[in-house]
């Protein structure tokens, strides 16, 4: 029976015209505004894998990312540790089974580990630009200065009255934040960030591969 191919969709409504990238419907990035000084990207297609396990077990040894930090110790994977004994792995779209497999192989029998593909359960956005902290400070009570929240900082806190995993992950020396919240709030969250960024001419952008 011929059926339309399953298309995955982000909770953030598309703006402008759309493309399908890696099985995901995404907004097209406007060429004109490429290199906007402050941009907000819907990164929903990225793979997200949740890992829970002991702070001093095989998983921790593999991921090498202490609580409070983000790192790229696994190639092509951003590992974030916003909660104790818990990691979220971000990778290119469609890589969840491979990642889960990779970690599972390292877990000895008897070690309690939860591995979940949470790609669809979280909204993921990236805010990039030097005014990023000025936008975020309208919504978030954390001290965003370099001393307290340097690049590589990973934390779970309240942003726009949502519980958000916030990772400072600068790109080419430009301040950048990767933020994820419960998927169902995605529309609201994106809107709140855009509103806060109005003052600094924030621009929404579509997802482009590899995106991580």
């Amino acid at each position: 029976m011929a059926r339309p191919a399953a298309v995955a969709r982000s909770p953030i409504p598309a703006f402008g015209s759309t493309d399908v990238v890696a099985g995901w419907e995404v907004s097209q990035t406007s060429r004109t505004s490429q290199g906007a000084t402050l941009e907000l990207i819907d990164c929903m297609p990225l793979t997200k894998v949740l890992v829970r396990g002991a702070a001093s077990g095989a998983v921790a040894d593999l991921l090498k990312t202490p609580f409070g930090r983000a790192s790229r110790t696994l190639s092509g994977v951003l590992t974030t540790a916003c909660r104790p004994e818990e990691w979220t792995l971000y990778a290119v779209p469609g890589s969840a089974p491979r990642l889960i497999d990779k970690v599972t192989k390292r877990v000895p029998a008897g070690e309690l580990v939860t591995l979940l593909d949470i790609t669809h359960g979280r909204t993921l956005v990236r805010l990039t630009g030097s005014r990023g902290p000025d936008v975020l400070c309208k919504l978030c009570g954390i001290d965003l200065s370099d001393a307290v929240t340097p690049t590589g900082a990973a934390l779970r806190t309240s942003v726009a009255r949502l519980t958000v995993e916030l990772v400072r992950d600068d790109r080419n020396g430009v301040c950048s934040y990767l933020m994820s919240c419960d998927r169902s709030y995605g529309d609201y969250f994106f809107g709140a960030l855009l509103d806060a960024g109005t003052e600094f001419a924030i621009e929404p952008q579509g997802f482009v591969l590899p995106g991580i």
Partner: protein
Amino acid sequence: MRLSLRPGEVIDRSRPLRFTWNGHDYPAFLGDTISSALAASGERVMSRSFKYSRPRGVLTADSLDPGCIVQVGDEPNVRASHRRVEDGMIASPQNVWPSLRFDVKVANRAVSRFLSAGFYYKTFMKPQRLWPAYEAVLKRFASGGVISNRPAAGYFDKRYAHPDVVVAGGGPAGMSAAVAAAEAGAQVMLVESEHELGGHLRWGGAHELSVLAELKAAVSATNSIEVLIDSVVAGRYDGNFLAILQRSLPGVTERLIKARAKTLIVAPGLIERPYVFAGNDLPGVMLSGAARRLINLWAVKPGTRAVVFTANSSGDAAAQDLEGAGVEVCCVEDARRGGDVVRASGSATLQSVECGDGRTYQCDLLVTATGWTAPTSLLNMAGDKPTYDERAARFFPCSLPEDVLATGGITGDGSLEQILEHAAHTGRLAAGRARVAGGRLRKGVPHAAPTDSPVAEEQSNAITALPVDAHVALFRGRTHGFVDFSEDVSSKELEAAVAEGYSSIELAKRYTTATMGSAQGKLEVVNAVAVVAAATESTITETGTTVWRPPYAPITLGALAGRTLEPVRYSPMQSWHEARGATPLVAGAWIRPDHYGNPTAEVRNVRSNVGLIDVTPLGKFDLRGPDAAKLLSQLYVNKWAKLAVGSVRYGVMCAEDGVVLDDGVTGRLSDDNYLMTATSSGADTLLEWAESWLQTEHPEWRVHITPVTSDFASINVAGPKSRTLLERLVENVDLSAEAFPYMRVRRGRVAGVEDCLMWRIGFTGELSFELHVPSSYGLHVWESLMEQGADLGIAPFGIEAQRILRLEKGHLIVGQDTDGLTRAYSAELDWAIKLDKEDFSGKPELSWQAERSDWPKLVGLRPEDVTVVPPEASQIVHDGAIAGRITSSRMSPTLGRPICLGLVAPHLAEPGTELSIVLPAGVRARAVVTEHLAHFDPEGQRLRG
């Protein structure tokens, strides 16, 4: 009258403006305040007082000015001595009865005898039924402007900040402290409530102006100072959390900055205190600061012939400024040499002044400089209890917490140079403390960069305290006058209040309302205290002040609210529901379809064909680990140990008091992996509840619970044709009744989407399948189902139809059919409760409940009149008393008659019992207790089909 160019003037004479006041057109210059422009045009009466209708004019010429509160367009209570004129602005007086200028002095005198403070407590007591009429009259006295019922304009913003040092007050002390703190390495916020930095230097002489220029240059040359003008530090809260209101911003009406300051420097200077004597509120009587500001900032000549009553240098300087401005100073009455002012007289405005020795001067201006009030408000908020110094006749900071410092006029006198030095020391000390505090705040923050070792701070005792000059203690003179201008409270009324027994300052305040107006005591509290102290024959120290509270200056609701941040949650199918015109239902943060136009038809379609409902908000949890069943057993009253892989069970959860907390089904997906569901509204609580058992009572259990509510789009496919429909879309799962019976769970591919879970459960009482598909494919699966079901008569249904369907089936809703006191046995859940388990939440209470029979019971009810649906919450009465209530009630489209659930007293719970229900309008209806909670298919044949 406008003077010729003044060296420190803030008006731009090249930018003339026009505005409307009281219906007439007035000129102004850019930089003028409303009141300075009016004063420049010779206007002296700006308002009438609210109780006695007395004319009032400029008193302080700054934001505290009690007689200069006006309406500007839609905005009430605008400070006319602070708000700058804009071209085309429409301003009007607020209290103008009978008119702005009319002389009601005579009437006043007659009335004021009877309108003394608290008169309303002593009359209109009887009869009570007339009070509304009196009240209506009293309300006519309400002061203030008019709030229009138009949607408010404006962009109100908020932000957090984490400065090292916040300096409240941008006078010389504040500027010097800010520069020193910044030079010592601190990130500084310098906050000044006026439109420009400089404090009192701005209306000073050449020396002051040159120091001001230097300080301003130093501030702007320092990178790490953020200067906020027209901004107020409005509150200091626990944890040195500051509310800073920022105005005069481009594109933003107002912004509230919530600053977690490591240290706060309070440098607000001093507030000039009015003198209490007869006629002290007449337009034309003003403080020395007001006269100097009018002359030096706005080049306004405040009068033509003046008496100056001075006790300090500010009065002396005012006398000089007046002469310089061409005002004839006919008398300088010097309090330091025993001079006094006894009475000011005039009809609408000042005409003469009587001095202590009986001399009377004809004049239109009286300038008083009788002393200072320390604005200690922010310090009090920080826990300080400032002490009164009799010699200086003002309060001083006493015991400040580590994170709050004070400098400038509030801490002492001395030369400008001494003050600058004191402030610089304070700034450095604050920076040092901020560094230490910053280290403390970063300690234990796992993501913070390592702290550098704290530098030893400058010793506070290294700061030489400012000298304190003696000042004549002048509060009330020989006559009575106004203490609180905005509340229209005189010293006489305060004395009377004390005599009547309201003898503490707090009672006198509440009885007379002194200090309860717009300035909140900043102008009036010390005079009020002095009057009460004199009347009770005690000292000012013994009397104490009233409590200072935030905000330091009034803040708009708009600024406090900021942008609306009300999170909402949507399912992945939201766009589809919206496009189909679904009526939204707000359920906590979720917005869900209540129905798509006709809930009754939706019900019928489920019973006869197949329907789809979006149940994404259902709480869902992944449980993993060898002890998952132990956790389930602890949370639920049911047993879980023997649930087979691939099976699903309904469970009920109670709190420790035995009250029903939540319910839902849980399926065993593999040996040590379960998927648990909870009511959508209970999901957040449930997670915390489960974690509390794991973290506090059973840390030894090896299990993870992870919320996965939003990971899945959840779709219930219900109706006799649901299997037929799913067979068209589901791959690799045998959907037959034998292979996939009721209360089982399977995993498979649906509409080409992998990893979908399917449960056979039925809240609706129909054959139904609940699909949990990875959220991003929710819309795809939903659309596929709609498409494939077209020939089966598929239609979506909403919450309302689901409520009816479940009621027909007799399924309870926790929180609707139970309440905050309903223990599990009352909810007909006896079958689920397993008291032989070792432990579960609420077990003791339930075991005691089991031994008793006097609890209400949930029952099914069949109203006898098939046309009348008793509204939910209708009461059931028996023997003249309330004996229960209807918890759920609907007309059943399936049965064609009303159906209900009710919680009733135990003796009425037997099936067949006839009950009396009170309908609206008091009519009684009869209903019979049914055998089962289910009205439809009690045997459950359909859902097992």
